[in-house]
């Protein structure tokens, strides 16, 4: 009877101690898992919030910088000035000096010839010359054409007409001059 009781007690105590250990382990691991879950979420939430605060700060800094850029009158003045300079830089590319064309013609016209009229059309810096001249004779017409040929852009001069008028020979020629930049030398300066 006593033996039986002891055995039963022994069995009971053995069973109880093995179940308790598993329970303890389960409890500890469970708590660790909960801490880990909380820690991971806490970390992520902290990083997210800290970053959100930083974004707000940077956004407000950007807003301030933009405001200072848009409201500063000096900035607008310097922008306007730069705009004009850039547009002038573009204009410069098509600019020629009319007086350079006249100087070029002066250098190439024979002293005995008299210009009656002169038309100059400028397109992209290239000048097309149409002129009527009074020359003493046909030989001078040839010399004059030769002189203009030397300065024309394509080395050719178109003789539109030549004929005797009163005491002289009137000639009409057309030719193009090459592009003359604004830095060409001016004779009359």
């Amino acid at each position, binding site marked *: 009877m006593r033996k039986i009781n002891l055995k039963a007690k022994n069995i009971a105590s053995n069973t109880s101690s093995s*179940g*308790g250990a*598993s*329970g303890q382990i*389960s*409890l500890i*691991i*469970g*708590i660790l*898992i*909960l801490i880990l*879950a909380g820690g*991971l*979420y806490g970390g*992520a*939430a902290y*990083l*997210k919030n800290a*970053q959100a605060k930083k*974004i707000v700060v*940077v956004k407000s*800094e*950007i807003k301030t*910088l933009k405001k200072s*850029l*848009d409201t500063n009158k*000096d*900035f607008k003045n*310097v*922008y*306007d*000035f*730069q*705009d*004009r*300079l*850039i*547009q*002038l*830089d*573009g*204009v*410069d590319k*098509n*600019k020629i*000096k*009319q*007086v350079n064309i*006249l100087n070029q013609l002066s250098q190439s016209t024979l002293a005995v010839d008299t*210009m*009656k*009229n*002169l*038309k*100059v*059309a*400028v397109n992209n810096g290239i000048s097309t010359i149409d002129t009527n001249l009074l020359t003493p004779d046909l030989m001078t017409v040839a010399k004059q054409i030769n002189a203009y040929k030397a300065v024309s852009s394509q080395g050719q001069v178109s003789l539109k007409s030549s004929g005797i008028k009163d005491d002289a020979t009137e000639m009409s020629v057309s030719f193009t001059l090459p592009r003359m930049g*604004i*830095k060409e030398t001016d004779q*009359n300066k």
Partner: protein
Amino acid sequence: MRPKLLFFPFTLIIFVWSFVSLTKPAWTEYQADKGKLQKLITEKQTLVKGIANIKKALAEFKQLSDDDKKMVYNAMPQVVNNDNLVAEINKNASQSGVMVIKVGTKKSTNKNASKCKKNASSVKNNKSTEANVTNCALTAVPINVNMSVVGTYPMVKDFLNKLDVQNRVIVPQSFSLASVNNKQDNKDKQTADVIDLVNAKISFDVFQKQQNSKIILSKAIDNDSILKSLLTGGLNQKGLQALQSMVTSEIFYPVTADGVGKENLFEQTTETTETVQ
């Protein structure tokens, strides 16, 4: 006994649930915001750098002499400025000795300007490229001027020379010179004074700045070519040098409308206005 053993699987379930529904979304949001923050920091750095560069250009601008600034404003005004144009032409004419017979202006047919309009409309429809828009901003608006003057050949030549280098930059389109005595040859053979006169008809373009006043600098900082040029290289020295080579005349100071006010608008007066010197 049983609740203790069930605690571990229960916490595992909690862990998985918290990871999926709390930690992961928070992390994803953090990652997304990280890119956003980086973008904002870059934007801020661009702005800071941009403002510093504009300040440098501003310092450069402030160092320019008043004459240099005046020269740029005269050459490329914001508005047509016909008054100053006519006054400067008159100044050149009176200095050369030619008589101005006629001056007229009209809007020049500008291919670039019409391109600009097309681009502006397509920008609204988001069809235009950035390059087209920036080219548009760089194009000055031409105004064609037609005029005729009479004087001796040296006078006319001097006048043309003065026009070439005047403050309001011109780009010649055409000019014609004709001896006046051709027409009057038969009538006035005895009037020696008329013999050497030349009649000049001149056509040229002057320019007006493309209207760009409504620009908001902070919005244009990424795609505006003018602003980009300011941010990278300061003031456009090339443009200034180009102008200095084009304009060699003295600085023109615009006229003021002295003596305005008249009760009888149709009353004829004998007083003559002073010529601008």
